[in-house]
């Protein structure tokens, strides 16, 4: 029997392991974003997560924002969290702090109104952040089995090569990761439209297969309810220039990222999986909101394929960028970590490419910086399901 594959990661009390060790300064609401950003400058490497949400939201939309922020704060890559509140907002600092404590990590909270204004809050916050940094200063990487790893997959700025090279390649990586005990999240419900009939046979149970198909039908119905179609949106003008004509064609290529493992769970946006293996998450095709949702679901490393050249990163997780074609890998070389275009060029077999990408994935999990990290990309956005009121 082969020994389990391990990677040097940061083991967390909740059974996961981080690929990074981040001190997070998390605003509860848009109103505290500036103060949070200023506080983060007090400790080198600390990351603030400014966002536009946290107040005047209703129902499922409010729940989604709270779940996303709590999930981000509990992500395996987070060492400790300073929650920065305003004081009168809808998202409560105590709820976010509770989520962090449940994940077994140090957390402090701070309110701008309580502190007496912007400057006082920044001064007080900087001191709290220094204390948190000291508490986690001794954390080191340790060998962690891959069943502690939650891997995410994403395709953005797709072209017709996505479904030929990079997405099937990521599917092979997903299969290897699942075989090694990891959890792999596949998302982008919009980009299952036209391929949903392939999902039910993939379900680990008939009920999971039914849920997977229903998730896609609900997404399509949402589009139709607005009296609109996807023309001009998905496929996007860039997708079309890259040879993708319809959402069906794009979806069939997108689904290649899911490899061949059974689907073990179907998750709402930003929900942490409760199982290992392959899971689907209901996210928009929008890359920023989709990657944020998977990070909130605990993903600590994101495999991202692109045909047009999407530089996107994630504030709290490394994004490993895989080009679908060689002209892109050449033209935007600084944004690309791996060139799957060599497969279409006939210069690299799919299996050899999978070996190389698997090694690179493990290296990134162990700390190797990705192009998006080196370039400072930290795009972040939360899915909205209702208007601001």
């Amino acid at each position, binding site marked *: 029997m082969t020994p389990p594959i391990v990677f040097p990661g940061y083991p967390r009390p909740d059974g996961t392991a981080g690929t990074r060790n981040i001190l997070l300064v998390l605003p509860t609401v848009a109103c505290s974003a500036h103060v949070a950003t200023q506080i983060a400058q007090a400790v080198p490497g600390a990351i603030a997560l400014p966002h536009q949400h946290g107040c005047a939201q209703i129902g499922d939309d409010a729940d989604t924002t709270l779940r996303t922020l709590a999930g981000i704060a509990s992500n395996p890559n987070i060492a400790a969290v300073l929650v920065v509140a305003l004081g009168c907002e809808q998202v409560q600092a105590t709820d976010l702090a509770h989520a962090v404590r449940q994940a077994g990590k140090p957390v402090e909270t701070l309110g701008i109104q309580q502190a007496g204004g912007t400057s006082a809050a920044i001064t007080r916050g900087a001191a709290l952040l220094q204390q948190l940094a000291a508490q986690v200063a001794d954390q080191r990487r340790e060998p962690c089995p891959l069943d502690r790893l939650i891997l995410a997959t994403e395709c953005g700025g797709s072209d*017709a090569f996505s479904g030929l090279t990079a997405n099937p390649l990521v599917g092979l990586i997903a299969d290897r990761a699942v075989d090694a005990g990891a959890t792999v999240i596949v998302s982008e419900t919009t980009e299952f*439209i036209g391929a949903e009939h392939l999902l039910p046979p993939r379900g680990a149970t008939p009920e999971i297969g039914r849920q997977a198909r229903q998730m896609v039908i609900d997404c399509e119905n949402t589009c*139709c309810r607005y009296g609109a179609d996807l023309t001009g949106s998905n496929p996007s003008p860039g997708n079309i220039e890259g040879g993708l*004509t319809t959402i069906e064609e794009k979806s069939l290529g997108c689904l290649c990222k899911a490899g061949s493992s059974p689907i073990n769970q179907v998750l709402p946006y930003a929900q942490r999986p409760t199982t290992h293996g392959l899971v689907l998450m209901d996210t928009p095709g929008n890359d920023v909101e989709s990657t944020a949702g998977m990070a909130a679901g605990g993903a600590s490393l994101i495999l991202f394929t692109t045909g047009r050249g999407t530089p996107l990163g994630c504030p709290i997780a490394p994004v490993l960028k895989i080009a679908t*074609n060689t002209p892109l890998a050449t033209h935007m070389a600084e944004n690309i970590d791996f060139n799957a275009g060599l497969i279409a060029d006939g210069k690299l077999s799919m299996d050899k490419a999978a070996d190389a990408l698997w090694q690179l994935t493990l290296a990134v999990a162990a700390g190797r910086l990705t192009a998006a990290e080196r370039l400072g990309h930290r795009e972040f956005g939360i899915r909205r399901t209702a208007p601001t009121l």
Partner: protein
Amino acid sequence: MSKAPRSRRAIVLDPADHVATALVPLAAGQVVDGITLAADIPAGHKFARRAIPTGTPVLKYGQPIGRATTPITPGQHVHTHNLISARAGSGN
């Protein structure tokens, strides 16, 4: 993919497919896998490998990717000018 018939210039993903995908930019008049191209085909774009009547589901990956909006003859570029989605409010 590994079992699909393949040349260096174009790929057919499933034997049932109506379309092939150019792997490199192809020029009108070139003969690719026995099909004479009726138009320039950019890399990644599709050309018909058989006749497709109006309204027919067009197959790629062995799956429907939309419907033909005009009769399409072998070698023609297959894209937004002659293929439309049948889903999410499109094509109705």
